[in-house]
């Protein structure tokens, strides 16, 4: 092709307005599956975590998981939705081997939660309201593994294996209304939206919400409208977006790709697009049309879901603070500047910080450790900060520093020990013998030794060249293997010079 396949992002935004829509699937962490009493867990040996219901065996019947209903209502309420007095399950009929019954039980025209909105904040602090059309319950499908062929996809595979362990895992699908006006913030807004949904489900405790494990999946719909035309473009639906960063990149990519096609006079194919994390591109999936006929009809094996007003109010009363409100409150309580607070939020460390402060640490110290040394170590190891240390451990570390037991430098060594699994900070201090030497006698002995080795130093200090003390302080710190408070050493050196 002669034309470039991507248009410059800024140029694309000059010509077109992006129109967005998201479908986020949240896997609920209930004890059992959506419609069977198999444990809600899908690792392990394929096809072991299944019942006749999950396999769709003849004669088997689904029974709705009450916990999943409660979780879905809580999520609906947290999204500001109305909860339906009566909602229904429907069958979505299509043949695919990962679908045990060749229909998926989902909610169609009568979802459990409808019409809500979520406020999301952009990195610069601006707020954007995302309209929510609905949140509905459904069951997950099994997992196909395509064997043979180079791509691991169905095209070119010799055969495919199917594992039904995931079949029947409870999902809530959150569908937004069409989102206008995101403009050049579209990529960041997409990330912020998914991040907010993640915060909400984590705060509710209804999902493990690990995107890399598929607990939270985002399908991003995007189309471009020629600026000022008011005409909606043809949309694509990008799937397989498994991290917050990818959500942002995928939207950005699709804007650039679609803009290049449209500006060259081409047309956008309505289709699913498959996001490739490695190449940062999307590729064509299956064509998707509004005329896809799933022959939906009400699921006759299940009764309508009719939660009592008491249940809804009970769940409403138990809702945790909305993430946006909570952020506002914490920022005020901690006295952070805009920049400091945004730094914490954007690092995804808000919960860690809050827990650390709750465990007794000062907000600034907690911020310093989490966004500093811990983030650096996590980054180097390519893992989440929260997987390295607990808030409790960090709070303990900070306490040791503030009590003077550790210097910052010693504390970093203790942190390494904690991460290495050597125990709590106090235990690491003990076993590594890392506490600050606060015995002046020991320090003075080391100082005298250093002064004897550098006889001219005392004279220089007495001549007013106080910076000459640095050489002695360095020698003492070295002799004490760093386990001394440099400020105290300095004080003692200056006393000796008097």
């Amino acid at each position, binding site marked *: 092709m002669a034309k470039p396949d991507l248009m410059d992002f800024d140029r694309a935004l000059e010509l077109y307005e992006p129109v967005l829509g998201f479908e986020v699937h949240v896997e609920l962490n209930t004890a059992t599956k959506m419609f069977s009493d198999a444990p809600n867990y899908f690792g392990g040996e394929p096809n072991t975590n299944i019942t006749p219901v999950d396999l769709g065996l*003849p004669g088997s019947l689904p029974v709705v998981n009450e916990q999943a209903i409660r979780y879905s209502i809580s999520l609906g309420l947290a999204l500001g939705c109305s909860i339906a007095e009566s909602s229904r399950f429907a069958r979505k009929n299509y043949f695919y081997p990962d679908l045990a019954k060749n229909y998926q039980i989902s909610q169609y025209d009568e979802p459990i939660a409808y019409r809500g909105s979520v406020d999301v904040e952009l990195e610069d602090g601006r707020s954007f309201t995302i309209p929510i059309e609905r949140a509905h319950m459904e069951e997950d499908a099994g997992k196909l593994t395509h064997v043979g062929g180079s791509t691991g996809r169905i095209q070119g595979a010799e055969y495919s294996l199917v594992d039904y362990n995931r079949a029947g895992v409870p999902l809530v699908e959150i569908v937004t209304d069409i989102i206008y006006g995101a403009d050049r913030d579209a990529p960041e807004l997409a990330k912020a939206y998914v991040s907010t949904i993640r915060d909400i489900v984590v705060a509710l405790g209804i999902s493990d919400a690990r995107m890399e494990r598929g607990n939270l999946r985002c399908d991003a719909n995007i189309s471009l409208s020629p600026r000022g035309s008011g005409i909606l473009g043809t949309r694509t639906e990008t799937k397989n977006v498994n991290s917050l960063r990818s959500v942002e990149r995928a939207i950005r990519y699709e804007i650039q790709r679609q803009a290049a096609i449209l500006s060259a006079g081409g047309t956008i194919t309505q289709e699913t697009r498959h996001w490739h994390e490695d190449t940062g591109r999307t590729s064509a999936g299956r064509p998707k049309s509004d005329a896809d006929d799933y022959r939906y009809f009400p699921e006759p094996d299940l009764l309508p879901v009719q939660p009592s007003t008491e249940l809804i109010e009970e769940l409403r009363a138990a809702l945790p603070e909305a993430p946006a409100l909570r952020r506002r409150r914490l920022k005020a309580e901690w006295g952070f500047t805009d920049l400091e607070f945004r730094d914490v939020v954007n690092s995804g460390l808000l919960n860690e910080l809050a827990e650390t402060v709750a465990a007794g640490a000062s907000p600034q110290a907690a911020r310093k450790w989490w966004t500093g040394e811990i983030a650096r170590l996590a980054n180097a190891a390519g893992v989440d900060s929260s997987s390295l240390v607990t808030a409790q451990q960090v709070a303990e570390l900070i306490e040791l520093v503030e009590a003077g037991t550790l210097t910052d430098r010693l504390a970093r060594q203790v942190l390494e020990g904690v991460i290495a699994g050597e125990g709590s900070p106090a235990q690491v201090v003990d076993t590594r013998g890392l506490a600050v030497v606060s015995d002046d006698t020991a320090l003075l002995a080391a100082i005298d030794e250093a002064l004897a080795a550098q006889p001219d130093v005392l004279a220089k200090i007495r001549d007013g060249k106080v910076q000459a003390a640095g050489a002695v302080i360095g020698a003492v710190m070295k002799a004490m293997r760093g386990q001394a408070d440099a400020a105290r050493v300095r004080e003692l050196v200056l006393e000796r010079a008097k």
Partner: protein
Amino acid sequence: MTTANDLIHISAADLAERLSSGEVSSVEATRAHLDRIEAVDGDVHAYLHVAADAALERAAEVDRLRAEGDAGLGPLAGVPVAIKDVLCTIDMPSTAGSRILEGWVPPYDATVVRKLREAHLIPLGKTNMDEFAMGSSTEHSAYGPTRNPWDLDRIPGGSGGGSAAAVAAFEAPFALGSDTGGSIRQPAAVTASVGVKPTYGGVSRYGAIALASSLDQVGPVSRTVLDSALLHDVIGGHDPRDSTSIPDTWPSMAAAARAGRREGAMKGMRVGVVKQLNGEGFQAGVTQRFTEALALLEEAGAEIVEIDAPHFEYAIAAYYLILPAEASSNLAKFDSVRFGLRVNPPGGGTVEQVMSATREAGFGPEVKRRIILGTYALSAGYYDAYYGSAQKVRTLIQRDFDAAFGRVDVLVTPSAPTTAFRLGEKLDDPLAMYLNDLTTIPANLAGVPGIGLPIGLAPEDGLPVGIQFMAPARADARLYTVGAALEQILEDRWGGPLLSQAPELAVATAGGTN
């Protein structure tokens, strides 16, 4: 002294008493039925599978428990029973009469089967049926038709022709059936047996291979009203594995049946004759026996009222949209991936091609016809006109029932428009076949219970005629009372059960049974 011949001819209730008193053993009773199956089932073909060894083992176990004085044995412990092949059984193939499930042994028991076992009944085997319960003659079984014990050239009804014929041919004292549009009641009518479709939700559907989920209901088939009631008491009640199962506790159906045999049971009972389901389109002998039965009820103190149910005439049309729609979805799982038949197209193929080849080879023509109809009825653009309209009709029929039950205690119709027709007679005319369920379908659409029982032989062909009573949802017990009352009146007139007038079946002499 009870002979083997007695053991197969007495009712389940009588047999249970003799077992309980120690007069006969379960092994003797079970062996007598197995011998009978061996002797006549070559002609009747009521069974698809006979579990002789397992049945005798279980019977011996029950005899042992009884000898030990086990107080936990239920009232029917040791009584043999036949099971329609639509029900999942962990130890017997469960094919629903279809090639696509040939040899499939489920890894679990249907709830009703589990309840039979817990009550220590003795499953004899699995009975024949129209494939996936689609049919009114059992001719659509992939394993060959069942024949009517009254005339082997005639159909035994369907889809549960196997269960009805087994009972009518004394190959089992009673059996389980399933009724989606008449599959228990219509076979009962043409074989002079008793059959009950319980209130929707009264009996668990878990493990019943689904035809149309909103219509299917498992129920008993027997030779006496009391026997059906006894079996109903075993299988009925709430099942947490079936969300549509009603959580109520139920009165004893057996007690209700016994109450029906008391003097004056029909006194003051208001019986509604459905105007739309009487007269036109019914065989003369059917109408004649039906009219006589009404006169007997009136004589016994019932008040006969004519009931207008204006929407009943649309019942078949609505039914043949709702049923195929649900069936097309329920049968989608038969795709060769997880269980059942797999047919690989020549030279291999994609999964879609394997699914297609399997379904082409595994489903019979009636099943394909209904899958196509149902798929069409649910399609975008047609849904409102077909499935949507049918559901509205269903609501109107439910309202007709509500209005009727505001005036009467039970409704009454003939169980089927004709007596048993000849094998092959309607096989090429699906619409004529569908009309067999004219009177039974409304109860399924409304979820109300119905009972069918014999009321005599049609003068023109000497074949059995059945009557159907329907009651409001959850009033199944009332049907047993009414049914038992009429049964008593008729048997007093006949001098015994109608089935004693059935011709003797030829008995196969080969084989090593004794």
